[in-house]
Structure formats: C-alpha cells, structure tokens
C-alpha cells in the first residue's frame, strides 16, 4: 500500500532571537560542528546557549525523543533509523546509545542549559522558549518543532522577534540534510473512482497552493510555487523540508504506544536526571520485549 504526505510538520528547527544574535555578533551555524562551536562560544561570552524543557504533565519527556531521533538521523544512515523504530535493531545497540549521548552532550552539561541539567526534566516545554526573550536572555537557542510560536510571549512576531534555522547536520559525516517531521499520510483504503480522483487532485500543485495560502500547511511537493505561502516564515520552513535529502517520520510515534508514549519518555527523563544511557536503553528495550 502506498501513501504520500499532504500537509507535513517539520521538527528539525532551532529557534532564536535574531536581535540577540546581532547584539552578540553570532552567525547562524550551518553545520553541527559550527553549532557546537557556537554553544561553547556563548558559554565563553558568559551566556547560556540552550533552553531545553521536557515537562508536559503525564507526557513529560517527549521533546527529548525528538532530539534523540534528530541526532540518530545525523549520526547514522536512514536505514539504521528505520531498523531502530521497528525494533529490528535493539534499543541497546551502540548506535542508539550514541544518539542518546549526543543529546546528552547538549542537555546534560550544566553550563549549556538554562537552569542547569537538573531543570531540563522539570521545565515545561511550553515555558522553556520564553528564555529566548527574557531580559537578560536566559538562552540563545531552542530546538523545537514548527508549532512552538503559539507559546512565545504575546506579540512576538516570527521572522522579526523570533526566527529559526535548520538544525544542522555534521559536515564530516556526509549524511546530507536529514529532516525529522510528522504529518498526514494519505492513502486509499476503499478503492473507488472517486477516491482515485481525489488522490490525483491533491497531488497537483494547485491543491497544495490553495492550502498553502491559508496557512498552517507545509508540503513536500517540489513543484509548488513557494511564493504562494501565506507568510515568509512558513515559506522558510517549507524550504527546509524541500532541501532535505532524507525525511523521516517521528520515531516515537511509530513505536508501539507502551514504548513511544511510555518508556521512551520516562527513560529520557531518567537520562537527563543522570542515569546512564546504556541502562536507560536497556530499560526501554525490556519494556518493548514485554509488549511482544
């Protein structure tokens, strides 16, 4: 059975305040190496680079799963990612543990995160981006999906007060520009002429451009006229999507509920609290085995 994306969401974005970057003369990093260098630069200048918040009530921990999935796409080939989310490759595989530790390289260093590593799990994910706009700035960068502007302080204009750049990939690893995202996959379940007509229609540029003009819509269709987007910010997000050499659907959504909406979340909370990555991976793998 085949399906295709009509309406997508992008998660591999880093949000920042352009004016704050300007005040300190920082450049947008284009590679992961540059991003890590910028992180250290900000610390050297006396600031805190990242705002990371995992808190979400009963769902606490889910933003960390996005981080780990993004890091997996940037350290391993896409087929490794696929084998991971289907559990063909166990959670305890060194590739997965390494991806978790890549996240920890940002989130477990007290100097790198606003509030220190201990605050990561308890800061609500809706509150943490506010650090970008506080006075003095509590952080300079916040990695989050495209929905987050809804939680910026009132009156924040995306594109002017807040902007984003693509969460970069390693220049040295030669894995292209992977993008993590989600979206709506369309497929035909009840075969009929009308269903085929609909599918054919929404694959046209015209159908895409109608929704693009209304806003809240991203498309992987490479033939659309990107100037038709309702605002510059959405166009820029779509450019990130179109420039991707690899696109993968959010991993925790693909895993069974007890893992992707259960032990993976709580495991990440334990990891940010100081638990060892291999132990956390083992616990998640055990819970996955218990579901089989």
């Amino acid at each position, binding site marked *: 059975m085949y399906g295709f994306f009509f309406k997508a969401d992008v998660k591999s974005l880093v949000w920042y*305040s352009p*004016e*704050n970057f300007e*005040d*300190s003369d920082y450049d947008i990093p284009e590679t992961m190496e540059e991003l890590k260098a910028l992180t250290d630069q900000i610390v050297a*200048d006396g*600031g805190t680079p990242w705002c990371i918040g995992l*808190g*979400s*009530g*009963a*769902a606490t921990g889910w933003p960390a799963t996005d981080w780990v999935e993004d890091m997996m796409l940037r350290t391993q080939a896409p087929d490794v990612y696929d084998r991971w989310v289907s559990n063909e490759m166990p959670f305890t595989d060194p590739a997965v543990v390494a991806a978790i530790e890549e996240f920890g390289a940002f989130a477990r260093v007290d100097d790198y995160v606003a509030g220190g590593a201990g605050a990561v799990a308890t800061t*609500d994910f*809706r*509150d943490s981006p506010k650090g970008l*706009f*506080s*006075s*003095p*700035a509590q952080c300079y960068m916040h990695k989050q999906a495209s929905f987050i502007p809804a939680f910026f302080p009132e009156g924040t204009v995306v594109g*002017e007060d807040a902007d984003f750049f693509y969460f970069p990939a390693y220049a040295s690893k030669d894995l292209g520009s992977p993008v993590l995202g989600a979206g709506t996959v369309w497929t035909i379940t009840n075969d009929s002429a009308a269903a085929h007509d609909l599918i054919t229609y929404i694959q046209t540029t015209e159908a895409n451009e109608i929704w693009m003009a209304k806003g809240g819509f991203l498309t992987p269709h490479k033939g659309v006229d990107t100037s038709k987007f309702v605002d510059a910010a959405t166009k820029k997000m779509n450019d990130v999507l179109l420039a991707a050499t690899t696109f993968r659907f959010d991993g925790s959504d693909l895993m069974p509920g007890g893992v992707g909406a259960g032990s993976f979340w709580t495991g990440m909370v334990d990891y940010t609290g100081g638990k060892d990555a291999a132990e956390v991976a083992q616990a998640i793998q055990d819970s996955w085995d218990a579901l089989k």
Partner: protein
Amino acid sequence: MSNIAGSKSSLQWVVHISVALLVMLWLFPTLGLFVSSFRTADQISTGGWWTSLFPAEQNLTLRSTDPDDAGAQTLIDGVYVVEGNLFKAGVDATISVWGTSSRAIDTYVPGDTAELKDGETITVQVNGDYVWTGTTEMTGRGQRVFATSTTPPEFTFKNYKTVLFGGDSTDGMTKAFFNTLTVTIPATIIPIVIAAFAAYALAWMDFPGRALLVAFVVALLVVPLQLALIPLLRLHLGIGIGKGYLGVWLAHTGFGMPLAIYLLRNYMVGLPRDIIENAKVDGATDFQIFTKIILPLSFPALASFAIFQFLWTWNDLLVAKVFLIDATGQTTVMTNQIVELLGTRGGNWEILSTAAFVSISVPLVVFFSMQKYLVRGLLAGSVK
C-alpha cells in the same frame, strides 16, 4: 481548666502565640492560591504572592514605536526624532537602570543618552519617556530598550473571567462545575434513603444475624475502593450502562453505603428507647415508627452524612475517571479538569490557581456553613 492546670498568665501568651503560628502555617498554602488567582501572569513571574502588595521590580524588554508608522518620525533641526513612552498607556512604572543590548541591560541610568550604531542616540527618562534621534531617516522596527523597572501592585479579575466565562473548553470550568454538581447531588441523596432503612433495621429490630451484619458493614468500611474498579466497570459495560452519569451515581451509592449505614446506625442506637416502645405499644407499625419518629429525630446524623458524602463526591477524582469520564471530553468533572490544566497549563499559575480556587470554593462554603454537622459526623463512633 486553665486555672486547674496551674498555668500562669505568661504561659497563656505562649499558647496564644503558638496557636496563632499554627493557624498561619495552615492557612498559608490556601492563601497563596487565593492571592495568586488575582494576579496577572507578569505579576506572578516577578515574585512570590507574599510580595504582591509591594511594588515589584522586574526586567522588561520594551520597544519604542516603529519609525515606519505614520506620524512617528519627525524632522526637527535636521535631526530625525521619534518620541514617546516605552510603557503602555496607564502603566505607572519607574525605571532604575536600562540598556540597549541584550548583553548589557544595565549600562545606563534614567536621563543618560545611549549611542547606537549609525549615529543614532536614545535617551530614556525615569517614567519611560524616550527620545530617539538619528542623523538619517530611521527605518525598520522600533528600538529595543531593556529596562529594570518597578511597577506598582496590580490585581485583576481577568483570570476569573477567563476561567468561568472563557468558553474555551481547556480553561473553562463552568461546564465542569455543572457536571460535578450533577454527579454530586444524586450521589448524596440516594444513599441516604437506602441506608436509613437499613440502619434502622440494624439498630432497632431484633433478628438473628444482626451482629454479623453489623460486623459485615464495619468490614466493608475498610475495603479500599481500588479493588472495586475493574470488576464494576466490567459489570457496567456488560449490562449496558457503560460510562456515564448513571454508572457514577450507582458507584458512589455503593461506595458510600458502609459509611452511611455505620453513621446512621450509631446515631439511631442512641435514640431514647421509650419513645419507640411507647409507639409500639400504641400500635404503630415499624414502617410508621421509622418514617414518623426515627427519621425526624435522626436529622443531625442524616445531615452529617450528607455533608460527608457531598464533600467526598465533589472532591473525588478516581471514581469519576473510571466510571464517568470517556474520551469525548463532554463529561469532565472539576477535579479532572484541574489535573488536565496541570498538564496543559502547568506554568500558567494565574489560570491554574484560579481554576483550583473555583473548584475548592463550593466545598469551602459548604464546610464553613455546615461545620457543626461535619464534626459531629466525624465524632460519631470515633471517640471511645
């Protein structure tokens, strides 16, 4: 009592002070919630609720008017000028230090003139008045000014409006309020009727097995209701009631029955024997004795249990979650709504505290007006 114990008057003062401290300690948490519900989000972030009566100092990011706005920029003596006040109309704040870069927010004091790039300057006064000048025409967005300012205390009813009349299902408590009322009232009234008859039988009718039944009731008082959830949910689903109001009324009736019978029986046993004996001699049937004599006399016990059950069902979360609340979100009760808010609005204390206070306001009113009965109910059978 005090003179028997031989306490001196100075000891009395110690007692007064210790009780006062104890009361303040116990009131402090609830008071915090109450005060926070009247503060705006900005005010809450400036400091704890105990500072709410004093002017608060906070670091603000303010912006001057956009020079591209009509009439904002004027040309005076060859210099382009934008003037105005950094604060919104009606805000009465004073600036202590300010800056123009996010790196250094306290470089200047009010009255200073900051040199910006491109030959522009900006001067900011204590009350937020600013003058922004440039040698060439200024374009783009307004100039950012970081000001450490002291704002006077501000209280508002806006939170209550949002929570009660907002209409937004995530914040709105009105629907949940009526739902909770709908759950509570039948669940309070029905157990009383059933239990009163049973209590009378156990108190005043002599029959074999009575002592065993009383022991049975006492045993069931202790059974935790966690045990009953899954079997009863399956039962309800099996006989077609499903999750809904009828299910939760039946559940609360069942769970409240031991306490009702126990409380009412204890009280009825204490009723004067003569009245009942006389009525029997006069030829009254048991049913008549019950409805005409026992029930009216038992009113205090009935009131006690009613208050108990009302508070218990109003404040309950577990039974509602299992027997009432389904995925549609139409049947939420206040306690569940608060738990949802803790998840979705965990950092918005102005909404959270208001919603929480709304949910505890009815029990508090019931408590203060009917305290006597509540205490009596607790004491019934507890003091040995």
